[in-house]
């Protein structure tokens, strides 16, 4: 009989907190946590003392006071009598608009430039290099200011559209007016509109949803669904009989007939801009500040994206393009079918941080008078109410949420691409 000897029970000693690797990590963590909490408590304590001395205890009441200023570009209805919270919301939407538009155009320009930098055309490749170096090496703030000034100097003045001997005229069959106050494009109008749904009553976050828009989206979704059905059916027939029935006219019909019928029923027509008084009236006005910011941010970010794309393409071994050439693919087909899809895997992660940078750089909108979140909540509202702490904290919080959302979405997309690739 042998008895298992119990391992000697080690009694816990204080010194083990330092010398025993098992406990040391706990010690370090507790110390780190304590240190962090002490610092945080110290900062908060200072803030409370200071704010009390200033007589400005933290309060978010200012958000429900009237803002008092006008905002030129508003996606929701807003007037100077609305509250500060609503002004901030309008600003947030403006931030999102310019970030969204900027990311799309920056990607398009970036990919084109990145590919053209590798072009066999010496001149084009050199010009693209000059573009990339010029934009990467000069601060974005400078580009934003310059884009704004160049647009307002170079585009035709409203004055030149006026009078008998106007020197400028509207382009695209008199539907689009390009001026140095912005671009006026036709807007969609419905003479037999179904009206709007008002949501959230009278609160600062209220918004309207156009029933026309819902109807259009619903019809479009149904049409696409039906087209898919038709396609699936065609495939089924093809698998059964070996012959694919011709369905393109059915597809087109399903896609267009209901939509046209709906648009006619709603009384769809285009609202064209026309010169009245000081400005063009009617149509949608893309303001100069938006265009300048959009242009500068896209061109600046595109320069970085171009480098990423170029790096991604170069990372694909030459064997791939030689193989594609051996298959008889033309250079542009090689690029779009063989190289770019593979390069995508290398390209996407740094792309995410460029999208984040673009979104964060949009906070420089203040330099061109574009009312984004920094211009409203962190600008005029802060100035007028004097609530620095609350405004800046809210501002940081909102940007943080936007950034985290963007990186979450892009990381999700990245994961998906990677899975499909491997």
């Amino acid at each position: 009989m042998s008895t298992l000897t119990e391992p000697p029970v080690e009694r816990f000693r204080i010194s083990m907190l330092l010398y025993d690797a098992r406990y040391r990590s706990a010690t370090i963590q507790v110390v780190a946590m304590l240190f962090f909490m002490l610092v945080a408590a110290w900062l908060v304590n200072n803030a409370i003392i200071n704010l009390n001395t200033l007589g400005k205890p933290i309060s978010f009441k200012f958000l429900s006071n009237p803002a008092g200023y006008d905002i030129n570009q508003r996606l929701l209805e807003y007037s100077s009598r609305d509250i500060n919270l609503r002004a901030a919301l309008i600003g947030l939407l403006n931030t999102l608009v310019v970030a969204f538009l900027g990311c799309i155009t920056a990607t398009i320009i970036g990919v084109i430039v990145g590919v053209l930098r590798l072009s066999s055309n010496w001149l084009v490749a050199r010009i693209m290099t000059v573009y990339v170096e010029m934009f990467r090496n000069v601060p974005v703030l400078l580009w934003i200011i310059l884009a704004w000034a160049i647009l307002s100097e170079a585009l035709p003045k409203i004055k030149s559209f006026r009078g008998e001997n106007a020197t400028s005229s509207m382009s695209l069959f008199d539907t689009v007016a390009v001026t140095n106050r912005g671009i006026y494009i036709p807007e969609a109008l419905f003479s037999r509109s179904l009206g709007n749904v008002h949501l959230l009553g009278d609160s600062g976050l209220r918004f309207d949803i156009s029933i026309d828009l819902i109807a259009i989206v619903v019809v479009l979704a149904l049409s696409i669904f039906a087209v898919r059905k038709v396609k699936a059916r065609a495939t089924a027939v093809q698998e059964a009989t070996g012959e694919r029935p011709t369905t393109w006219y059915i597809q087109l019909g399903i896609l267009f007939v209901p939509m046209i019928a709906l648009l006619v029923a709603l009384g769809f027509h285009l609202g064209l801009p026309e010169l009245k008084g000081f400005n063009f009236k009617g149509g949608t006005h893309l303001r100069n500040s938006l265009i300048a910011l959009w242009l500068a941010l896209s061109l600046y970010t595109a320069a970085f994206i171009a480098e990423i794309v170029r790096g991604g393409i170069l990372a694909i071994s030459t064997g791939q393009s030689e193989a594609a050439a051996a298959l008889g693919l033309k250079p542009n087909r090689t690029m779009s079918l063989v190289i770019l899809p593979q390069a995508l895997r290398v390209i996407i992660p740094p792309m995410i941080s460029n999208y984040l940078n673009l979104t964060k750089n949009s906070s420089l909108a203040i330099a061109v008078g574009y009312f984004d979140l920094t211009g409203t909540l962190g600008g005029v509202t802060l100035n007028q109410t004097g609530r620095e702490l609350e405004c800046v904290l809210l501002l940081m919080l909102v940007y943080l949420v936007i950034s985290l959302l963007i990186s979450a979405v892009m990381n999700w997309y990245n994961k998906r691409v990677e899975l499909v690739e491997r």
Partner: protein
Amino acid sequence: MSDLSFVRTEMLPEKAPPASEIGIVGWLRHNLFSGWVNSILTIISLAAIYGVLSVLIPYVFLSVWNAESLNECREIMNETWGSSHGHACWAVINERWLQLLFGFYPPEFYWRPILSLVLLVVALAPILYSDRVSSKLLIVTALYPFIMPWLMWGGSVWGTVSVAFGFVAGYLVLKYATEALGELFAMIAGAVVAIVWWLFIAGMFVGAMDAILPIALETVQSRKFGGFMLAILLGVVAIGCSLPIGIVLALGRQSHLPIVKWLCVCFIEFIRGVPLITLLFVASLLLNIFLPPGTNFDIILRVMIMVTLFASAYMAEVIRGGLAALPRGQYEGADSLGLDYWQSQRLIIMPQALKISIPGIVSTFIGVFKDTTLVSIIGLFDVIGLTHAIRADTAWNGIYWELFAFIALLFFIVCFSMSRYSMYLERKLRTDHK
């Protein structure tokens, strides 16, 4: 044998290739007109280049260099070219370039920032060109963090010496007490010695030394800093200070200790998630609220703190990239040698990881350097801020493009050369790995 006279028996002399394949024509055909798409692209590009140059060249070169005010510039232009449009008035740069470069730094002390910059190059040389520059220069690198503030801000040399001595004392304690106390206690003891020195003894030391041997530079208040110098200073300070913080954060983020890791991740993601301008708002509007009542930092110092925090989050990510790029075997090799965590980091991991990270660090520097222009929004007189001030002078009110062109050129020269260096380094590192 039959007469095969149609078969040539001697080689023909080599002919020159067709004229369309060599020389300028051939080069043009290959590189510019190799197909109709390329030809169209070439023609469009040429037209674009012509369009830009036809405006730029007269603007830049047919310009006024000497004038007292914008109005005088316009008069000269009208006299010379009959129009005041399309010509630059560089006279403003001619008059204000020193201010644009140095801000309000006293002109008699311009040598101090210049010397700082030269020393910076000397200090960086052994790191950036480690293969060509003697490593003896590393002594300059070690001293630079103490010399630079003294040169820029001035004051008694003994203040600088005493701060440096604190570090030396701490290091000496760490070095000689390690055997007696063990690494952890030696570290703590070193820190305690340094802090005791700075808090209690340094003041007396400085007072005593000043009485014995007063060596001092005239103090320059940091609100005199401005112009392009401010951008460089902010960039250098931010990168210099953020390097150690970034290393700690990167290690923390990779740590197995959940609380430490969580704190580091939160900090990094928070800083990376908000725009720099909001951090600058914190510096200009809020930092005083979070400090004890009565403390009042200079705005430039506050901005330096926030820019450093900003840079350290990005630096942490760059270094994390460097750490991730190290082969697993390096970590395992260090472990198998019996090195503990700090030893393996110090001797094996960090030297390699930092070397890989240098291109990333350089591009972070370029980014921070460009972003320093944002301080103009909170009212500091960096180059862009100075343009507001210059245009508030009645003589130059209304001038616009010339100032921005000059600023863009300054930034381009500095950033472009740094990015070229970073590319060179990347190429060098790549061959190292093959």
